[in-house]
C-alpha cells in the first residue's frame, strides 16, 4: 500500500508542483530509478568538483598539486596554511549551508506547493537577525549557543507569522500572498533591526559579524549548529513520504492515511532548523533555496524521496560555485555569495513569475 502511494506522485504530481513544462517532461521521460541514480551521482560529482574548485581558487590561485600537498602532507608553508586555515573551513561552511538551503528549499516549495517559495523570501533571515539583534541590545554579547538558539526562534516566529498572514488572506494562501507576506514581515523586521542597531553599538557588532551573507565569515562554530542541522535533516527525510502524498492535495493525503497536521508541523520544523542553521552559520543568503529545488526537479522529477538528497547535493554545488565565482569575478576584492546568488536568482525568480499565472487559485 505504502509503496503504491509513494510511487504515484512521480507521474501525477509534477503538473501540480513543477508546472506544466516539467510535468510534460516527466511524463515523457518517466524517470526511472536507474536514471535518477545516475543524475544523483552526476550531481554529487559536480558538487565534488565544486569542492575542489573552491579549494583551488582564491586570492592566489593554487594548483592541484599544492592542494594535495596541503591536505595530505602539510609542511606549514604559506599556501598550506592558506588552504588549511582559510579555504578548507570556508568550503566546509559552503557544503553545510548549501545542503541545508537546498533541502529547506525543496521542503518549502513542497509544503506550500509554491514554485516561487524560498526560505529567504519567507522572512527567515530577517526574523533571525531581529532575534539576535534585540537580544544583544537587551542582554549584551551572547554566547554562540544562545545566539544560535535565538536565531532559530526568530526564524521560526517569522515563518509562522508569514504562514499565518498568507493563509488568512482572502482566498487562502496563494503563491503571491505567501511571497508578499514574506516581503512584509521581512521589511518589518528589517526596519526594526536597523532601528535597534543604530541605537546600540553592541547589537551593531553582533549584526555586522553575522550579516555579511558570506561563507567566508563564520561565527559560531559548526559544533554549535550541528545538532540542529542533524535533527533538521532527519526530520526532512522523515517528511518525504508525507510530502509525496501531500503533493496530491491535502484531502487525498488525508484519505491515504497521512496525519496532515503532524506532517506540516514536522515540515515547518525541518525548514526552520535547516534554514536557521544556514542563517546562523553564514548569514542571510536568499535565492539558493529557490534555485535548487527547480534544478533538482528537472533532474529527478517530483518524487521527494529523490528530491531531498538531490536537493542537498545540488545545493552544495550551487552554493560553492556561486562562492567561487564571487571570488573570481570581483578580483582583487570578492563578491559575497549572497550577492552572486541574488544576481543569478532574481532573474530566475522573474522567469518563474512570468511562466504561468501564479495568482490563480
Amino acid at each position, binding site marked *: 500500500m505504502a509503496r503504491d502511494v509513494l510511487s504515484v506522485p512521480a507521474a501525477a504530481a509534477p503538473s501540480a508542483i513543477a508546472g506544466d513544462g516539467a510535468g510534460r517532461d516527466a511524463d515523457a521521460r518517466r524517470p526511472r530509478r536507474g536514471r535518477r541514480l545516475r543524475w544523483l551521482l552526476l550531481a554529487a560529482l559536480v558538487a565534488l568538483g565544486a569542492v575542489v574548485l573552491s579549494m583551488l581558487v582564491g586570492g592566489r590561485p593554487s594548483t592541484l598539486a599544492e592542494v594535495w600537498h596541503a591536505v595530505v602532507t602539510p609542511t606549514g608553508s604559506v599556501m598550506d596554511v592558506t588552504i588549511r586555515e582559510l579555504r578548507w573551513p570556508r568550503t566546509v561552511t559552503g557544503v553545510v549551508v548549501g545542503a541545508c538551503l537546498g533541502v529547506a528549499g525543496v521542503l518549502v516549495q513542497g509544503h506550500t506547493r509554491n514554485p516561487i517559495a524560498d526560505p529567504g523570501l519567507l522572512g527567515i533571515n530577517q526574523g533571525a537577525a531581529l532575534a539576535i539583534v534585540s537580544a544583544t541590545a537587551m542582554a549584551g554579547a551572547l554566547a554562540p549557543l544562545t545566539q544560535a538558539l535565538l536565531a532559530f526562534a526568530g526564524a521560526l516566529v517569522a515563518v509562522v507569522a508569514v504562514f499565518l498572514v498568507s493563509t488568512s488572506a482572502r482566498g487562502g494562501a496563494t503563491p503571491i500572498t505567501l511571497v508578499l507576506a514574506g516581503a512584509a514581515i521581512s521589511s518589518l523586521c528589517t*526596519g526594526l533591526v536597523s532601528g535597534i542597531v543604530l541605537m546600540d553599538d553592541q547589537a551593531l557588532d553582533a549584526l555586522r559579524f553575522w550579516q555579511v551573507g558570506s561563507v567566508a565569515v563564520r561565527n559560531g562554530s559548526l559544533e554549535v549548529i550541528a545538532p540542529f542541522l542533524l535533527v533538521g535533516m532527519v526530520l526532512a527525510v522523515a517528511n518525504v513520504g508525507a510530502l509525496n502524498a501531500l503533493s496530491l492535495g491535502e484531502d487525498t493525503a488525508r484519505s491515504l492515511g497521512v496525519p496532515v497536521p503532524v506532517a506540516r508541523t514536522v515540515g515547518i520544523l525541518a525548514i526552520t532548523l535547516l534554514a536557521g542553521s544556514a542563517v546562523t552559520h553564514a548569514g542571510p543568503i536568499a535565492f539558493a533555496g529557490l534555485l535548487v529545488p527547480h534544478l533538482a526537479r528537472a533532474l529527478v522529477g517530483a518524487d521527494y524521496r529523490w528530491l531531498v538528497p538531490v536537493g542537498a547535493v545540488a545545493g552544495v554545488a550551487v552554493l560553492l560555485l556561486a562562492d567561487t565565482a564571487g571570488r573570481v569575478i570581483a578580483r582583487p576584492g570578492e*563578491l559575497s555569495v549572497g550577492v552572486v546568488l541574488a544576481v543569478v536568482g532574481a532573474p530566475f525568480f522573474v522567469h518563474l513569475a512570468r511562466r504561468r499565472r501564479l495568482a490563480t487559485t
Partner: protein
Amino acid sequence: MTRNAFASTAGAGHVTGQNAARDAIRGAHSEAAPVPRSGPAGPVADGATVGCVPAAASGAGFRSVRVLRAGPVSLRFRPRELLVAAVLTAALLVAVTVHVALGGTPIPFGQVLAALAGQPVEGGVGLVVTEFRAPRTVAAVLVGACLAAAGAIMQTVARNPLASPDILGVTSGASAGAVAVLVLAGSGAVGVAGLAASVGMPAAAFTAGLAAGVAVYLLAYRRGIDSYRLILVGLGVDGLATALTTWMLTLGDVTNAAQALTWMTGSLNGKDWPLVLPLGAAAAVLLAAAVAAGRWLLLGALDRDTAVAIGLRLGRVGLLSLTLAVLLAAVATVVGGRVVFVALASPQIARLLTGSPVPPVAVSALVGAVFVLVSDAVAANLFATPLPVGVVTAVLGAPYLIYLVMRPPRRTS
C-alpha cells in the same frame, strides 16, 4: 484581456470603481443633481473592501461632485476633496513648523515662524533654521510628496493598490543608479558634491529607475498585463537591484555609513540646499504635471471601452503617466534614498479620506509629505539615537502591507 497600459484584473471591485468613476465624470457633463449611485448598495460602498477604485464618496444627500460654470468655462470639483486638501495643507504647515522646531535642540515655535518668515531672530537661530533645518524639512516634503504622487499614479494605472514604485523595483533601481554614480565618480567619501554628482546622480537614478520600470513592464507583459504577475516580476527586479546596490556599496569606498544607510534604508540626514534646491524645482514641475494628469487617471479608471469612447488615448496616457511616476520616484530617491511604504500607503489613505474613485494625486502628495515629516520628526526625536526616516516608515508601513495581503474578500456585485 486588455492590451494596454491600463492593466485590467478581473474582479468585481473594478466594476464598482468604474461605475463610481463614471458617476464622478458624469458630474462634469450633465447637471444631474444628486449623482446616481450605481455601485452596489450596502456595506460595499465604502472603500475598504476594494483596493484601488472603489465607490465614490458616499454620505447621505452629499453631492460629491459640483460644477462651477462661468460662460464657456466650467470647473468640476469635489467639495469633500477640497475640504480634505485644505485640512491637509494646514496639517502640512503645522508639521513643517514642528519638524523645523524639533530638528535638534528644540526651538520655540514663535522663533521658528519668525525665522521662516525672514524676520531677524536673536542669536544664531535664524541661521540654524534657514541653513541647517529648513533644507531637511524641504527634503522631507519633497520625498513624501513625490513618492506619494508616484504611488497614486502607478496604483491607478495598474489598478492595484499594491503597485507602487517600491514594490515594482523602480525605487531600488533608481537607488542602484545613484549608487553607481557615487561609486564610479569616486565621490563616495565626500558625498553628493560637485556639478557632476548633482547632475549625474539624478540622471543616473532616473535612467536606472526607468530601466527597472520598463523591464518590469516588459517582463510582466504576456498577452496583457496581469497585475499580480506585474508585482511578482517587480519583486524580482527589486531583489536584483538591491543586491547590485549592496555590492556596489562594498565595491566603492563608501566609508560614510550614513550615506550607505541613505541608499539602503532611506535617510534625510545632512541634506543641504545645493542638493535640495535643484531637485525641489524639478519636483515642483513634476508634481504640477502629475496633478494635471489626475483627470486622465480618473478617466482611465473607467472600463476600456468607455474611456476610449470619451476620447482618452489609453496607451499614450498610460505611458505618459507611468513615465511621470518614474520621474517622481527617481527625484525622491536621489534626495532621500529608499524611503519605503510612503508610496504604497499614502495614496490609499488619501483615497479613503476623500472617498474618491481613484487616489487623487494632489491629496496623496499632501498625505505623503505629512507622513514623511512626521516619521522623520519621530525618528529623529523619539529615540536615544536619531534614526533614519526609512526605519520609521518601514515599521509603520509593513503592517499596512500585511493588511493589504490579508484584507477581507472582495464583494462581487
